[in-house]
């Protein structure tokens, strides 16, 4: 029993915690949880808790449905929104009964990719801008709470109280929020999380999605991270601010270069641009994701870069003066309904490929690649990608393609209101 484990045991006892929720996600990023009693905690920490993985999406495989959830004591947190404060959570790594990491566990996939970066001497930092909507409920006809716009303040922004409560809950969960505001679309909001290392941030994002929904539920409304819930309005994206640190230095910063970007940053960016179409299925994993990735709604459509180009997938933000640590690349295609563990894995793999192979940025006269415009296109691009296959491992790669092909087939069979409204009267 190490000190961190002792800390968890002691805190559970001292604070009267009655349930400890063990968290992990399935391959699509849905949060899964099972609760244990304090009496089980010591065993859970040292030996792991056994569970039947066969009903978890992407976990089932012949003859190996028994899994062990190994709690990560560094992620122990008392949940701020349960009444009485007697519930805590820990994220888990999923291993087989013999202790080997289960390759269908997204957290272990990300760990694996981060280790690769560590071997090259880099720590991967991510700072996300999380967009979402509040609606009256989860019905198929979403009803907005307000008609406010970007940065609007009261009385149009009726939801600022919910945002405030959400921020306080997140701060108590050790998730610092840099800023929050009303976004462009009616009833749309944004939380900017302070950057941290990628594994921590993936945990934080899964937690944030839950916190936003919990606070909304306490107020009798509904929060959604659906990428494009309202036709004719901007959808919800999750721009990611990326940097690679080498020890204490921001590897993306160079005082000598134009834009303040180092050669390393340019190679990383070249990797992102070259591989953007292949990784889009992971960063934008739903049929609906591609309703957001269209021109005219502040969403990227090209694998290009710029300072202020709305259609470009990479933006180079202007760093704060004299702050080398704030030099970064902003990757703009992901949406908040992705699985952050897998999204960070493929984004990092794309950037590292640029560094390892000394990619050059595409020259000005070449037309940039178009991002996939449908889930089917994105899956085709992913299926051809050895980069994505290596980053995710065979198990996740194959399961994801199978699952998503089925989703696309179901969508293909759907007769939409667009067709009925436009074709039925005239054909």
């Amino acid at each position: 029993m190490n000190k961190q484990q002792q800390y968890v045991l002691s805190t559970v006892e001292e604070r009267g915690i009655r349930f400890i929720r063990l968290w992990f996600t399935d391959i699509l990023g849905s949060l899964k949880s099972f609760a244990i009693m304090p009496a089980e905690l010591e065993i859970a920490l040292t030996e792991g808790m056994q569970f039947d993985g066969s009903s978890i999406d992407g976990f089932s495989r012949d003859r190996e449905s028994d899994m062990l959830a190994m709690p990560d004591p560094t992620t122990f947190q008392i949940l701020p929104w349960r009444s009485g404060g007697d519930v805590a959570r820990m994220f888990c790594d999923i291993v087989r009964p013999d202790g080997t990491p289960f390759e269908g566990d997204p957290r272990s996939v990300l760990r694996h990719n981060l280790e690769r970066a560590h071997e090259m001497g880099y720590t991967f930092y991510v700072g996300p801008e999380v967009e979402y909507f509040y609606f009256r409920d989860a019905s198929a006809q979403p009803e907005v709470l307000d008609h406010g716009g970007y940065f609007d303040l009261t009385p149009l922004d009726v939801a600022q109280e919910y945002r405030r409560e959400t921020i306080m809950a997140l701060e108590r969960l050790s998730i610092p929020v840099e800023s929050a505001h009303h976004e462009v679309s009616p009833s749309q909001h944004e939380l900017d999380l302070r950057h941290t290392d990628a594994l921590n941030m993936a945990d934080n994002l899964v937690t944030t999605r839950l916190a936003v929904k919990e606070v909304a539920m306490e107020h009798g409304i509904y929060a959604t991270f659906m990428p494009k819930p309202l036709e004719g309005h901007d959808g919800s994206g999750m721009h990611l601010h990326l940097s690679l640190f080498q020890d204490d230095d921001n590897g993306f910063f160079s005082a000598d270069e134009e834009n303040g970007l180092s050669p390393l940053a340019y190679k990383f960016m070249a990797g992102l641009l070259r591989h953007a179409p292949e990784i889009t299925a992971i960063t934008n994993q739903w049929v609906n994701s591609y309703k957001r990735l269209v021109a005219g709604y502040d969403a990227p459509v090209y694998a290009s870069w710029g300072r202020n180009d709305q259609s470009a997938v990479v933006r180079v933000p202007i760093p704060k003066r004299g702050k080398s640590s704030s030099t970064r690349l902003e990757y703009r295609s992901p949406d908040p309904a992705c699985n952050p563990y897998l999204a960070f894995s493929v984004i990092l793999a794309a950037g590292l490929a640029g560094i390892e192979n000394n990619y050059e940025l595409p020259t000005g006269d070449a037309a940039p690649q178009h991002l996939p415009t449908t889930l089917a296109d994105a899956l085709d691009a992913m299926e051809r990608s050895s980069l994505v296959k290596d980053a995710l491992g065979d198990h996740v790669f194959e399961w994801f393609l199978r699952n998503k092909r089925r989703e696309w087939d179901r969508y293909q069979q759907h007769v939409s209101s667009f067709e009925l409204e436009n074709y039925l009267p005239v054909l």
Partner: protein
Amino acid sequence: MLLPIYPPDPSAALLDALIAAGFQPVPVSNIDDVIERAPEPGWAPAVVEVRRDLGSAVAFAGKISDEANLPVLLVIDRTLTAEMAAESAIGDFILSPIDRTELRVRLQRLGAGPPEVEASEILNFRDLELNLATYQATIGGFPSDLTYMEYELLRFFVENPGRVWSREQLLAKVWGYDYFGGSRTVDVHVRRLRAKLGEERSSWISTVRSVGYRFG
């Protein structure tokens, strides 16, 4: 109780066992460390772990017992048991892998009283209280939800107020030598601690530009 340990990078198993037995090991790299850094109530017996070179470990143990006047517990591999017959400078020895109860008892017999939860295990700074025995922090009388590393960082600050620490120093002293992650980690944790201390108290941790942080 503070206890000097040599070499300054002891095995994790030994550190864990000492902490579990209620001691706070302080890594020392030479005899001056042992003498100059002696805490007010005095050290617990010193612990010297033998790695490859028995001779140098025994020599250092002799210095501790002569110059710092401290009893020494030597941690040795079983194969060295016979050598111990001739080592008069060694107060006692224990075989690794370590049995924790044995470790505790041997250190007690060497002169340390059993570590107990005493007033010395409560640290205060204004309305902040840290209970070192239970790892709990209260702010203004209310329990605070800290992660383990947030707690450790806060404890370090409260134990060492008024001094400027660089990020590298904080990493080494709070996270330990084996931590991989870079000093951005320190910034991330300071930011979280400030949020949890609350607005009125967040200024307890001040940023000293291009140097590091100071508490109090």
